[in-house]
């Protein structure tokens, strides 16, 4: 037995789990409000753009989204294993690829705001 390299993904998983635990409920609530047209003044392009324009906003957005993606990818990998999907290497590759694509997209989006 040799030491596993699991910590590479477990670190982001744990950090992402904490970040999503604190933030995702209120974010989904806001999204629900937006979906239900709760207020016409919400989510104006201007306000969102302004938040994402300054470097602190970019840092926060990057941190929250990437940690959430990697947390969910790792956890869903284990969930699929628990459901009986045994092709772990295939599942891991696909899920981590999706997280990576999401990460890259986030970077590009933030850079062009």
């Amino acid at each position, binding site marked *: 037995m040799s030491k596993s390299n699991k910590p590479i993904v477990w670190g982001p998983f744990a950090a992402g*789990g*904490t970040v*999503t*635990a*604190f*933030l*995702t*409920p*209120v*974010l*989904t*609530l*806001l*999204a*629900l*409000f*937006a*979906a*239900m*047209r709760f*207020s016409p003044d*919400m*989510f104006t*392009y201007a306000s*969102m*753009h302004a938040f*994402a324009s300054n470097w602190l906003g970019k840092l926060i*957005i990057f941190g*929250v*989204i990437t940690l*959430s*993606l990697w*947390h*969910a*990818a790792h*956890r*869903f990998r*284990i*969930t699929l294993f*628990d*459901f*009986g999907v*045994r092709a772990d290497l295939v599942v891991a590759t696909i899920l981590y690829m*999706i997280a990576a694509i*999401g990460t890259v*997209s*986030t970077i*590009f*989006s*933030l850079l*062009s*705001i």
Partner: protein
Amino acid sequence: MSRNPYVREVPKTSWFFRQPRYMRYMAREVTSFFIGAFSLLLVVSLKRLSEGPEAFQGFLDALRGPWGVLFCLAALVAAVYHSTSWFNVTPQAMPIQRGEEFVPGKMIVGAHYAVWAVVSLIVLFMGI
């Protein structure tokens, strides 16, 4: 020495139906699907934001259909279940020892819930 041991197979796809605690565990883990999907939604929304006002409005319009509402509702429920189950086990994962005593688990959990409430209110008022 074992003469003829009998091995009881564990069914790979239905083992979690055997005990209520396994069902609760699977429900907890399934929240990761919604958290992941919602995070991808955020990635898309960020992309639309970077593409200009019309693109962003298009994103909002797409979100406003019945499927959008349903998805956000499901994501909200999943996110809350994730948060509560995550906070409730924090004392097990990170015990805090002060001298000979340990900080009571309830205090650690309570502190997390308090921070959760404060952070949520702040973000809520930023968004509205």
